């Protein structure tokens, strides 16, 4: 019953999002929606490894960047954009497989700083190898339409959220959550922690790679290093935490909140947007471990209890 | 002198102590015995402030210990030797002893106290500038007790001081504990070595599954059938 309702809501939202370009003609608004969708993809893909599996990955931008760089090169070389993106995602997977077994030798915070270092290595290396700005060729600029980009971002976001939902509700998802809660205990129950972590990493990397591909298709000119910047990782992490890690809706809410807050602040505090977000993030880590979703659950539980005690009172 | 009334202590959601009440009077040597996981260590840690009971009261010399911050409890004259001694392995014997007298009350008299400790544990004086980590097991336990004595305690609590030591050393340690008690220091001793603990003690408590299940003079408990069959084989 409840599942059906969620499904219907998801369908309606998807349809509404698909219909948006029919009504919204303003480029600024559409761009704005593109950003939200991009951040939804990033935060949700981060969440598969960082939230559901509990491996806080601070090298997420590496996957985003690899997807972007491969897609951009192939697309400029004349490939079909979807094919180019697929290769971008596969490149991210290849990298995930390469680093998987050494990275997962590290546990907890060591994994976190290890991935941070890895992300920085890639960031610096790409900066060294591709110091020139990458601009769209003229023919692509002429045929540039925002609506196409919008649909691409929407598709990637939908795929990401769908994949996260499917995995979270599968046996694999259960295993991942077991690994998050108590790795040793999970192992003793027969869950292969390494396999679960690796799967989460690969999936997370692939989806981030797709998002990078969409970004490469969207952004007119940028330094190839830019998608590798730690800022993408930090933003994804913060969005997931603020919305609520280890939930499907959390990263989505976090991403929407992130972009909307940025817009609201732009009225008078635009330049201090990272500060506001940083403060919020700290508050969530300290006082609200489940983020907005956790808060929502707590409120609902309280109401539920109230209702139960009321019911007891009226039917003694 | 020390009085625990209806103590409940938790580890997170897990309740380890259920309404523990016990009393130690001035000058006494009291033993607390019980099987592994019974809650002996938890009881001692609740007294020293390393753990805070959720319910109940603990008074010492008229002070409500639950209201005293952990670092001030030692100043009141309560000292504890943890399981395994837990000396600061990277620091010298001398530094370990100095830290024993960290509290403001004991710090002023630390040189005299140290001489006194050397009388009980002459071995420590020979090892003064050696890193505690390089001491033998018995020496470590001596250092741990000596360090606790540096705070000039009125009540000394020992958590399994004989654990892991060779039998001759065990006897030596118990002798020393007895000596300390004779000097007027009240002792609360947690032991797995039940026979020795009961022989040594004026009184004893038996704890199981976080509850006190028996109490009496050492001799009485020694002859008590259930204790004999459970702990003395």
């Amino acid at each position, binding site marked *: 019953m409840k599942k059906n309702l969620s499904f219907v809501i998801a369908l309606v939202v998807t349809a509404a999002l698909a219909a948006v370009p029919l009504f919204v003609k303003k480029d600024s608004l559409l761009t704005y929606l593109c950003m939200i969708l991009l951040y939804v993809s990033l935060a949700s893909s981060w969440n598969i490894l960082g939230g559901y599996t509990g491996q806080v990955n601070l090298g997420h931008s590496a996957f985003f960047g690899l997807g972007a760089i491969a897609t951009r090169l192939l697309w400029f070389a004349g490939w079909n954009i979807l094919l180019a993106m697929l290769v971008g995602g596969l490149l991210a997977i290849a990298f995930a497989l390469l680093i998987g077994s050494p990275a997962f030798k590290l546990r907890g915070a060591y994994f976190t700083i290890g991935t*941070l270092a890895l992300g920085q290595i890639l960031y*610096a290396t790409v900066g060294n190898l591709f110091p020139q700005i990458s601009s769209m060729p003229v023919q692509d600029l002429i045929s540039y339409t925002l609506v196409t980009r919008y649909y691409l971002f929407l598709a990637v976001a939908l795929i990401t959220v769908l994949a996260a939902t499917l995995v979270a509700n599968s046996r694999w998802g259960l295993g991942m959550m077991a690994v998050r809660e108590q790795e040793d205990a999970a192992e003793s129950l027969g869950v292969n922690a390494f396999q679960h972590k690796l799967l989460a990493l690969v999936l997370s990397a692939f989806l981030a790679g797709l998002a990078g591909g969409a970004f490469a298709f969207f952004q007119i000119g940028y330094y190839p290093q830019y998608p590798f910047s730690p800022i993408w990782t930090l933003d994804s992490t913060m969005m997931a*935490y603020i919305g609520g890690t280890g939930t499907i809706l959390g990263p989505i809410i976090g991403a929407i909140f992130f972009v909307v807050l940025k817009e609201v602040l732009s009225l008078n505090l635009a330049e201090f947007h990272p500060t506001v977000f940083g403060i919020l993030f700290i508050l969530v880590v300290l006082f609200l471990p489940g983020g907005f979703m956790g808060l929502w659950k707590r409120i609902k539980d309280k109401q539920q209890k109230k209702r139960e005690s009321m019911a007891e009172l009226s039917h003694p | 002198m020390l009085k625990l009334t209806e103590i409940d202590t938790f580890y997170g959601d897990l309740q380890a102590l259920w309404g523990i009440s016990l009393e130690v009077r001035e000058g006494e040597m009291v033993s607390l015995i019980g099987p592994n996981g019974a809650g002996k260590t938890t009881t001692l840690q609740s007294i020293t402030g390393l753990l805070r009971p959720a319910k109940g009261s603990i008074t010492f010399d008229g002070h409500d210990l639950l209201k005293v911050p*952990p670092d001030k409890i030692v100043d009141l004259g309560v000292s504890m030797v943890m399981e395994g001694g837990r000396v600061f392995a990277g620091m010298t014997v001398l530094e370990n002893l100095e830290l024993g007298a960290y509290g403001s009350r004991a710090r002023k008299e630390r040189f005299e106290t140290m001489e006194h400790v050397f009388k009980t544990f002459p071995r420590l004086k020979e090892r003064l500038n050696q890193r505690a980590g390089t001491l033998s097991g018995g020496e470590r336990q001596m250092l741990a007790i000596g360090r606790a004595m540096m705070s000039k305690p009125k009540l000394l609590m020992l958590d399994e001081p004989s654990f892991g030591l060779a039998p001759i050393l065990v006897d030596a340690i118990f002798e020393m504990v007895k000596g300390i008690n004779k000097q007027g220091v009240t002792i609360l001793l947690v032991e797995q070595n039940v026979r020795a603990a009961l022989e040594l003690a004026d009184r004893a408590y038996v704890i199981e599954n976080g509850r006190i299940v028996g109490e009496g003079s050492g001799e009485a408990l020694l002859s008590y059938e259930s204790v004999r069959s459970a702990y003395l084989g």
Partner: protein
Amino acid sequence: MLQPLAQNIIYGILIGALYGLAAVGLSLVFGVSKFLNVSHGELLMLGGYASFWVFKLLKIDPFLSIPLTIIFLLLIGFIFYRLIFSRLIKLEVEKKIQNSLLVGFGLSTILQNVALRLWTADDRSITTAYSGLSFELAGLRLPAVRLISLAISVVALISLQIFLKKTFTGKAIRATVEDWQSASLMGINIHRVYLLAFVIGCALAGVAGTLVSICYSIDPSMGLNWTLKSMVVMVLGGLGSMIGTFVGGIILGVTESATAFFIGGNYRLIAGLLLFLIILIFRPQGLFGTKEGDR
């Protein structure tokens, strides 16, 4: 070939001293409280800006402004500790490292943003009358300010070492590093020890920042790399040994300059990070010297 290489190595040693100084602060905080404060690099940046502005506006010599920087960072450290880090104390070790790392990131985002808005993205460096001065030794150039900075780093380190070895408070800090429960039983107020170690760590970062702003340059986005370098050094030097950490700093400095010499200046950072990853992977557990009693 040999002459430039030797020159490079010397520069490596000189900057390595600053890496060491920065890392000692991070390592002290981590050792005592298990807070992995990844905003350490931003604290260093704050120290740099403090000296820069004091020099610019009040014309106070940057080396002489170090006491001011120290006071400023002690204060900042106190505020951050009270407001943020003190709330993590009760967590178990793993969670404590993880969460301190996360709030550190929040903090670093904030500080970076504030610095960018207040002071723009420009590179800044303090240029005094004696900035260009340098000595010649066997054909090698030894810039005066960097030599003085090396000396100051060494003095700071020795002072810290004496404080830790000789004073009661210093011993309390070391005891807490080894076993906080035992330390607490000695009557040591471990919360005060945590606070003290934290602010000292911040002050050390501040001093390093001042020296960086004199010898090299500072900018709002420098923090993350300095944090990473400090972590590399901390891992290289092993926890708990100030001397080891300092030597680790020199090793990193020399590794970087050798990389710059043989491969290219752009690869300095990467060399250090690769070194870090290699150590991380081959010594994952004993890494930060977690001893018994760490729970």
